[in-house]
């Protein structure tokens, strides 16, 4: 099986089968991420489609010297998900409030590109962070809030939020060091 970098090169050369293969590898992780951000199945599928259409259009822009395919795809999906979240928030989310779906975890190991031990490593690392650091990182990552918005949300001074976020990220990097080459460490 081709590795992810080779798949992206093939997609850049308009290989539809390579896109299908990349989709099969990443659909579960990316859809789980979008469900966590949007909490709405229909919106999450819509954004996942946008993400793979952008991969199709822009695969040639991927530069393996600037990070792993995992980071590129996850960053792209998260960015699109947060954009959609803000659009929905601007519309006060009234229309989707009744259509929210519970994210149902599934066991789909054959198609999930990431072995459970990598998930476990990240969850274990996060569990070792002090609660006040962990909360800030998750608010930033999944809710797309700025540092000022987070300070207002948690009722802490902006300087404290900045210090705690930085400390949390440094601790996370230290704990994940060497825990999985697919993650880019």
């Amino acid at each position, binding site marked *: 099986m081709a590795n992810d970098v080779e798949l992206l090169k093939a997609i850049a050369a308009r290989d*539809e089968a390579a*896109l299908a293969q990349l989709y*099969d590898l990443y*659909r*579960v*992780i990316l859809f*789980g991420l979008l*469900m*966590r951000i949007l909490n709405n199945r*229909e*919106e*999450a*599928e819509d954004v*996942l*489609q946008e993400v793979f*259409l*952008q991969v*199709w259009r*822009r695969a040639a*822009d991927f*530069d393996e010297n*600037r*990070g792993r395919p*995992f*980071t*590129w795809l*996850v*960053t*792209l*999906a998260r*960015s699109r998900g947060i954009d959609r979240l803000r*659009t929905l928030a601007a*519309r*006060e989310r*009234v*229309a*989707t409030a009744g*259509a929210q779906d519970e*994210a*149902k*975890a599934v066991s*789909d190991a054959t*198609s*999930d590109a990431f072995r459970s031990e990598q*998930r476990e490593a*990240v969850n274990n690392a*996060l569990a070792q962070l002090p609660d006040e650091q962990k909360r800030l990182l998750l608010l*930033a*990552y999944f809710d*797309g809030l700025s*540092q000022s918005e*987070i300070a207002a949300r948690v009722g802490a001074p902006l300087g404290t939020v900045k210090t705690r*976020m*930085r400390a949390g*990220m440094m601790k*996370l990097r230290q704990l*994940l060091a060497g825990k999985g080459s697919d*993650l*880019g*460490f």
Partner: protein
Amino acid sequence: MVHEDYKEMIPAHALSTLDSADERALNEHLEACAECRRDLTEWEAVAASLSLTADPVTPSAQLRERILDRVHTEPRYGSEKSPVNVLALPSPRRNLWNSLGSLGSIAAVILFAALIIAVIVLWQQNRTLREQNETFQLLTAPGTRVAQLSGTPEASGATAKLAYDQNGRAILIADGLPRAPAGKEYQLWFIVNNKPVPGKTFAPDNRGRGIVRDQVPAAARKSAVFAITLEPAGGVAAPTGAIYLRGEL
């Protein structure tokens, strides 16, 4: 700020959580600092690892087919914003007076300017063609729905069509609308269960024609009332003005 100050901001930048002023300042620094760009690559990987704390969820089987159908039929675009993996580097500065030091250079500058103008014209034409192509694709896509909006007594001669595909990509084409007064624009609304959800605003041209692209909220795609009101320019969160056009599906 000095290099070390910027370096401390990079983890937050990787989470895209910096406030806008900090983000602008850091982006300027990143253009000039290779060390910080390398740092950013590492921190982006740390940030991306947080995605693994989300529970894995499987999308519907139909989504795979929809994506592959789309890529099979669509041309590749050239102007979409690049993903974050690629960072633009600063262009080298040129000394204008040196460039003008000879007639050959002057000719080159004129040729370059002509080329730039030609590129801009082609880009505009390409953008127009792309918009027309997108509109055509939307109107002819399987599953596209079209709502007919009729003028209310506020604009009895006005009509509009709102077409949207199964992903909610929509285009509204309105005709016969009165000119919007200064400081006012027309605004599209999606009304679901009697709750209006704001859409985009637009100002019609001299002939009363207005075109606007928007995204129909998921909950409004199966059944909704669509309305156009006159509102303060830029739009409002809840309608305040009279309804000029109305229709439903």
